[in-house]
């Protein structure tokens, strides 16, 4: 059987076997949780608690600051130790809250105003999604309510016909979406009901890669008869989980440059995000934890964990045990994840994985050669760019040229070009700094 897919792309070793069969386990509370108020794309949430205040698990700690913002909920019952700047994953300091969970507390989660599927209007569902602090859990951390909200530019052709539930999880090592699909199919179905109603999409497709056929089967069985949902299996290929690429693979539609998925009538939602909507909205709760894969050769006990938001990476690694040969730790998958400068950085809503490498994987660093024009990068680029040409221009610091004539902004830094480059040119690094430069120049 041949499955649908997209042109180009790569097949990195999956390395999912260590964790794909391990059920999701609850992770314990760290002595101190570090909760950044900016865990999403947009504006930081505004704290509504004081230092020294006792809070209950699930209580709102910070409220959304406008539309492009989401509230933050207490991941544990405990005491607010400090309001101060905390390190974000980029190394930049952001406002945050230090929360000390109360030892021996029952850690009961408080219930809020439920959003009932049968009575709520689409607007109420969207508001409830924002109130629950839900963002894209696949890694982008884009506020979900903002994604569902119809664009207000009054273009009549921007309706949604297809809701894509993205269970691709194409990054190596990561198995969180896989486990969520296996274990939370009912939450996913309820989430789809909410999303169908909120977006007014005609039908939903749950997209799964062919390496998760067990999940596809469980979901197929779980589909209720009264909603238009189908499960579609696509071939295993990286970076199929990227929304633009998945839309191309499934529907053969391309989002015109500079536009959103709504212009091709698609709403894409990560499967774990969808499950959270189904799990939280009926209880009026907010996100206080998420499922993450902790894996990699430097970890002693790999697995999938439901981990409180704000758990410091150091605590997670010490709790599970890690090799003395530890060399690199990154959040997310090995293709697009960010390496951590220190272990005192918390797991946030957008953290899908915590992967630790030893010296063996990081190696002595590969020798960089000049581009030999082999074209491997052109052959794999899912966006059909010319990474070789962009790389040469970046080396000459022709950033404006890259943006103007070579579609720099279309690159979403999937890393396929760097992965195949025989000259080991750090193309992704070049492109992200070029983009930062262009952004800064535009702003100035």
């Amino acid at each position, binding site marked *: 059987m041949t499955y649908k897919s997209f042109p180009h792309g790569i097949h990195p070793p999956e390395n999912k076997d260590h964790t794909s069969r391990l059920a999701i386990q609850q992770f314990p509370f760290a002595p101190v949780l570090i909760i950044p108020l900016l865990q999403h794309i947009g504006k930081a949430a505004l704290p509504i608690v004081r230092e020294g205040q006792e809070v209950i698990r699930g209580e709102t700690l910070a409220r959304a600051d406008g539309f492009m913002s989401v509230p933050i909920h207490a991941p544990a019952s405990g005491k607010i130790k400090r309001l101060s700047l905390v390190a974000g994953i980029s190394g930049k300091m952001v406002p945050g809250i230090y929360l000390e969970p109360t030892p021996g507390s029952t850690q009961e989660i408080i219930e809020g105003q439920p959003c009932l599927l049968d009575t709520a209007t689409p607007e109420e569902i969207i508001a409830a999604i924002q109130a629950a602090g839900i963002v894209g859990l696949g890694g982008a951390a884009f506020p979900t309510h903002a994604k569902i909200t119809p664009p207000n530019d009054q273009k009549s052709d921007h309706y949604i016909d297809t809701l894509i539930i993205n269970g691709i999880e194409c990054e190596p090592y990561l198995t969180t979406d896989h486990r969520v699909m296996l274990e939370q199919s009912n939450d996913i179905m309820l989430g789809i009901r909410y999303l169908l109603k909120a977006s007014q999409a005609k039908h939903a497709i749950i997209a799964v890669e062919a390496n998760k056929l067990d999940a596809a089967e469980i979901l197929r069985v779980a589909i209720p008869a009264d909603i238009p949902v189908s499960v579609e299996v696509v071939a295993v290929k990286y970076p199929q989980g990227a929304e633009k690429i998945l839309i191309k693979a499934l529907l053969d539609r391309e989002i015109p440059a500079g536009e959103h998925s709504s212009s091709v009538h698609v709403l894409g939602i990560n499967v774990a995000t969808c499950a959270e909507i189904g799990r939280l909205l009926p209880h009026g709760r907010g996100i206080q934890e998420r499922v993450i894969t902790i894996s990699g050769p430097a970890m002693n006990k790999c697995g999938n964990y439901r981990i409180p938001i704000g758990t410091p990476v150091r605590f997670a690694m010490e709790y599970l045990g890690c090799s003395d040969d530890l060399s690199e730790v990154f959040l997310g998958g090995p293709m697009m994840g960010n390496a951590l400068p220190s272990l005192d950085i918390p797991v946030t809503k957008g953290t899908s994985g915590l992967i630790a490498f030893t010296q063996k994987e990081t190696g002595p660093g590969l020798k960089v050669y000049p581009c030999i024009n082999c074209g491997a990068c052109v052959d794999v*680029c899912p966006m059909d760019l010319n990474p070789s040409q962009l790389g040469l221009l970046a080396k000459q610091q022709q950033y404006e040229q890259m943006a103007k004539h070579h579609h720099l902004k279309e690159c979403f830094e999937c890393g396929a070009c760097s992965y195949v480059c025989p000259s080991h040119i750090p193309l992704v690094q070049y492109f*992200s700094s070029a983009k930062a430069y262009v952004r800064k120049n535009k702003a100035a």
Partner: protein
Amino acid sequence: MTIPHKKAPNKTLQIRPSPHISGGASVEKIMANVILALMPTVLFAIYLFGLAALVTILIGTFSCLLTEYLFCKANGKPSSISDNSIIITGVLYSLTLPPGLPLWMVCIGGIIAVLLGKLLFGGLGYNLFNPALVGRAFLQAAFPSAMTTWYPAMNADRFTSLPLSTLTFPFTTPSYDTISSATPLAAMKFDQILTDSSDLFLGLSSGSLGETSSLLILTGGIYLIARRMMRWQIPAGIFITVVIISTITHNISPNTYPSAQFMLFSGGLMLGAMFMATDMVASPITAKGCFIYGLLIGVLVMIIRLWGGMPEGVMYAILFANAVSPHIDRWTQPRPYGYRKTKS
């Protein structure tokens, strides 16, 4: 709450940019595989021409290597010979030479190939032309008679003695001890003698060291294509135009123009199509561009071979196509996602 049982090692973490894994390809590996793919051809050249081939290949390769090494040293740059690419240039260059070429000419051509063909452009990755062909083109222009005097293949004493011409004193005219034999292409062009095509395919004919056995060259090329280290579009483009044009001309006038079979398996076409035209640096980057580039080479080869003054035209065809390659690149840029008309 569980007490952490072991402290995380307190050490500086590496902060590498993503992606954190690599596909394992490397310039050295690609180059080593090209050398491996060339080995059958090299060994066959030695079998066919004996010591003459062996010393030519050794001296040719060594002169290229030494030039690059000394150039890097003189410029205070780290030596670039470890990327293996210079060995390919050296071996390829040697394989284009006629057996029995005076060794001092072999040396000069090698120096020119590397210096003018590669290093002055900026070294690996920057050469506009295939360096091996630059070296050969120079020799062809400077020593046309030595470059077209062919020591016959399968000489009985080829493993025991060197042709007299090889050891000619530098800058003197070489003298030849054996009657020079014509290459199949020259025999066809000037005397209308056809060489048996199975001999051509297997390589039992006279010619430059490495161009005789189409079979072995194809084997090496197919190996590289299978390992995705060569774009099949380039040889395919060349073969298609050569077959089409020669089939047409052969049908019009079978006596003047040889058949497609003969055209494909004679002269430097196979070596050129598989190993010279496919120099990654000097050929276009996209698959589509490579196909157009291949077609162009095929057309140029046929023009020179059929209507030109020389029996062989592969070298010049490739050098011209090399010059056009950046322009082909500009015309065949991929169209990015989202810049197409959407179907919906």
